[in-house]
């Protein structure tokens, strides 16, 4: 029988977020008018409570709760921290965009529920729990994308995301069902044991299930060639939600990938690394080439995020090509480091984009024309985020890419590292295209300074601090990561 203490130890932050979500929901129903603006702050508050709770679980002794089918290990905790930090930034971003976007306040608790789902994925040890977490994240995301009900693009994006996402979920579920069939249990550790014999007796089903799970996950993190929905959905969704999809959804599903594939198929992963490596390569190439031709910044950032998914697949591929524990720890560290870097620079870029698009009434790259004159501060911040996305030194992006690169080389996968940097060089072109618009041209027509609210400044500044902090003083974070006991 589980005691309350045990439940609290295992799921404390998730419980806080869920309660916060319900409180926000009820509050939003009950109040009217301006008071509704308090709703997102309830969400922010619950994330702020959940953050230290999650932090306190770091380095905790491994604990598995067989009934709750949840593990407390550093892998889950560090991914949860990433998810919470990103969710916090997205919530603040959404609050800052409220004035113009007129978002329905539902987003506040929807984001909280999605965040609970994302966190559950990363610490679940049972197929059913995993899948429930995945669906919680997915279904709320579908609604979030279509939040602008009256906007055709938004509802179309929501529908598209709903269809594609559901199919992907179904494919994953189908893959998971074979595992249940083989093991007669939904617990990951039981399945892992059963699989050891199943590789001999039922190899077809094992590989089929792994292939199905991989395909579903590739759709969700928009890896090529399963990426086609990305640009449309990202473009249609309200900008803060786009940032949420790009960062939190992608990161959480990556956590799912590591948890399931490493735990269950770790023994045979070596046979698959080549395939995953190729997927990473195709994703990097298609993402970065696709971004070249985009004029709409949101679509460009969408393609760029496809490219980033490719970078994030490199450690996964490297992980599986070596049996050395040190290679595994390094690749896990570099994934998490890059995720944090990615979160700050991507949300930051979307936040500046949101302000500029609002001011210019356009999502086109032209909206940035002459920004350095109209708002030197915003232009400077955007420059920082773009340089980080390009991977230039002293930004989080460089250190993240560099450690991914070293991880790939450590695993003997030099070619992946080469493609990583080659595609980054392509990316220079479109990132610097925005810089050209900001600095190289005079403002057309409207020369008035870009107006931005204090809240918007706070979001942008937080992201900038994160980007610079990870870029200039990466030491504390890398120390933290290297001292983790990932899977207990």
């Amino acid at each position: 029988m589980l005691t309350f203490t045990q439940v609290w130890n295992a799921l404390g932050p998730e419980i806080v977020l869920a309660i916060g979500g319900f409180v926000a929901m009820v509050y939003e129903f009950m109040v009217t008018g301006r008071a509704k603006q308090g709703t997102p702050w309830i969400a922010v508050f619950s994330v702020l409570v959940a953050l230290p709770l999650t932090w306190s679980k770091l380095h905790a002794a491994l604990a598995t709760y067989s009934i709750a089918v949840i593990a407390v290990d550093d892998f889950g905790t560090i991914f949860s921290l990433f998810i919470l930090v990103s969710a916090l930034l997205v919530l603040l971003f959404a609050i800052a965009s409220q004035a113009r976007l007129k978002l329905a306040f539902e987003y506040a608790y929807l984001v909280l529920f999605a965040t609970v789902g994302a966190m559950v994925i990363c610490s679940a040890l049972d197929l059913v729990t995993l899948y429930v977490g995945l669906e919680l994240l997915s279904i709320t995301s579908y609604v979030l994308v279509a939040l602008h009900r009256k906007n055709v693009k938004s509802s179309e994006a929501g529908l598209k995301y709903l269809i594609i996402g559901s199919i992907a979920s179904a494919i994953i579920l189908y893959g998971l069902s074979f595992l249940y069939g083989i093991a007669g249990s939904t617990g990951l550790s039981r399945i892992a044991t059963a699989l050891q014999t199943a590789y001999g007796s039922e190899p077809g089903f094992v590989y089929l299930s792994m292939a199905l799970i991989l395909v579903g996950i590739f759709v969700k993190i928009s890896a090529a060639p399963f990426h086609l929905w990305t640009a449309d959905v990202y473009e249609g969704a309200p900008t803060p939600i786009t940032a949420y999809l790009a960062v939190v959804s992608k990161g959480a599903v990556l956590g799912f990938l590591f948890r399931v594939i490493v735990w269950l198929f770790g023994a045979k992963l070596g046979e698959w690394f080549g395939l995953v490596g190729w997927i990473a390569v195709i994703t990097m190439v298609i993402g970065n080439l696709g971004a070249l031709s985009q004029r709409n910044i949101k679509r460009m950032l969408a393609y760029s995020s496809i490219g980033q998914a490719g970078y994030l697949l490199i450690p996964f591929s490297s992980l599986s090509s070596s049996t050395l524990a040190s290679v595994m720890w390094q690749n896990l560290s570099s994934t998490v480091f890059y995720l944090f870097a990615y979160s700050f620079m991507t949300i930051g870029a979307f936040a500046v984009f949101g302000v500029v698009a609002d001011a210019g009434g356009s999502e086109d790259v032209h909206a940035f024309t002459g920004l350095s004159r109209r708002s030197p501060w915003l232009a400077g911040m955007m420059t920082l985020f773009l340089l980080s996305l390009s991977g230039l030194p002293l930004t989080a992006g460089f250190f993240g890419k560099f450690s991914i690169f070293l991880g790939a080389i450590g695993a003997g996968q030099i070619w992946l590292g080469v493609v990583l940097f080659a595609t980054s060089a392509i990316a220079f072109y479109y990132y610097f295209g925005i810089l050209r618009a900001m600095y190289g041209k005079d403002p057309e027509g409207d020369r008035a300074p870009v107006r931005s609210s204090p809240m918007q400044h706070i979001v942008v500044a937080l992201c900038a601090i994160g980007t610079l902090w990870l870029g200039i003083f990466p030491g504390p974070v890398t120390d933290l990561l290297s001292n983790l006991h990932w899977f207990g």
Partner: protein
Amino acid sequence: MQNVLLMIVLIPVFAALLTLTLNDRAHTIARSIGLLGSLLSALFALAAYIAFQRSDAAYQFVLTIPWATINNAFAGTPLTITFAFAVDGISLPLVMLTGIVSVMAAVRSFRVITRVKAHYVWQMFLVSGLYGVFASADLFTFFFFLEMTLVASFFLILIFGQERRQYAAFKFLIYRGIASVFLLLGFVGLAYALASSATAVSASQYMAYGPNFMSLNLLQLLDESVKAPLALGTQTWLFFVFLFAVLIEEAFVPFHTWLIDAHEQSDTSTNMLIGGVLMKVGLYIMLRFVVSMLPLALAKYSEWLAVLGVISILYGAFAAIAARDWRRLIAFSGISHMGLVLLAIGSMHALGLQGAVFMLVSSGLLTALLFYTVGAQAERTGTYEIGKLGGLSKSLPVLSGVLLVAALGTVGLPGLSGFISEITLFVSSFERFPWVSTLATLGMILAALYLLYAMQRTTFGPAQEAAQEGQGIVRDASVTEAIPLIVLVAFVIAIGVFPNILGVVVHPTVQALAGRIGG
């Protein structure tokens, strides 16, 4: 004195940050800060030159600032990345070159009248990056400052260039971006290769990390490469990765088009910094990393280097003959002269290496001088086109005189810096590749042809339309404008007449280096 290099690198950054806080219209303050920043850095460079132990071939003023650690990077051991600075007889002359050219460029930038603040900010970042590249003693530090020059030059070309500046800036960015990628690959490959062959590490490192140890620190890598040289196969791979990066960085044929566009579109002070200093980085990479750490591969492919060098010498020279525009002419002439350096490195001889360093410095000064002079002329006549100029010696005697000195120096007139560079460089290359070197001298003859012809067209003969328009109105170089000219000319003559002011610094280091490659 230990912090002198850090000061040199940081002062321009502080100047840039200070300039950023200024009002957009505070032009005079921006100019003063830019000039003071450059001057102060240059003075520190001078201090380093004075304090430098001349008889010592080793790195001096070593300063290491730990930056970050990547755990489990190599065989389970961490990789410590540092900001490390040090100079030796090869890098110190280039630090000095950066000092001289950057001050002159700061003076020249007084002429910029639009977006003055932005100009100085980016220029200061470029200068800091250039200093950093030459003063770094860590592969990461080097890469960081190289990327800084990339971004700063991009903005300088993009904002302050001519009509096709956007095209030129992006071409610059992409070419040099790709070169950076290869360079980074080469760096990491080098670090890995030398780490795995490491035979002995210091006691404290052994205690901390065990026998396998990886480092990006240049001093350590040099140590390792001497103690346990890499196998020829590994060296060859790395050699080609580096060579490819260098060919792009240095704008050697067929990767030269970006440089021509960049020079043609940039403003004068940017041209001085790019042509005078940034274009020396590629060959510095060659000397620093390839010659010292990949000697076997260098020996095996040194003929290739010589041939590549000669191709660039001749191509550059012929293209310069065909050039109608002064900036194109100087750019091609620069490519031609950098080919000479490649030839000298291929000779694998101490004298050749010394000539290479001399040539880098001399060509840096002369290129800056040429760009300054033709920029000043174009400001008065409104054109860079050689065909439209003529008879300038009457209206602009000082500028025309300086142009003559610069042209003669580039051609290699005895008593000027170009001569001593060429003579040392050719002496060793003739010993090793008589035929190839004969071809290379053809490039020098062609240089005399195109430079003197262009010079003569510009300064003598009847005044052409463009110059006539300004007759009587145009003024010759003002005092502020003439100071950089005099300083640059003074250095060109000083090196030409007393080559030892450079030689004493360069000599021990190239001797040691040549000892390593058997020259």
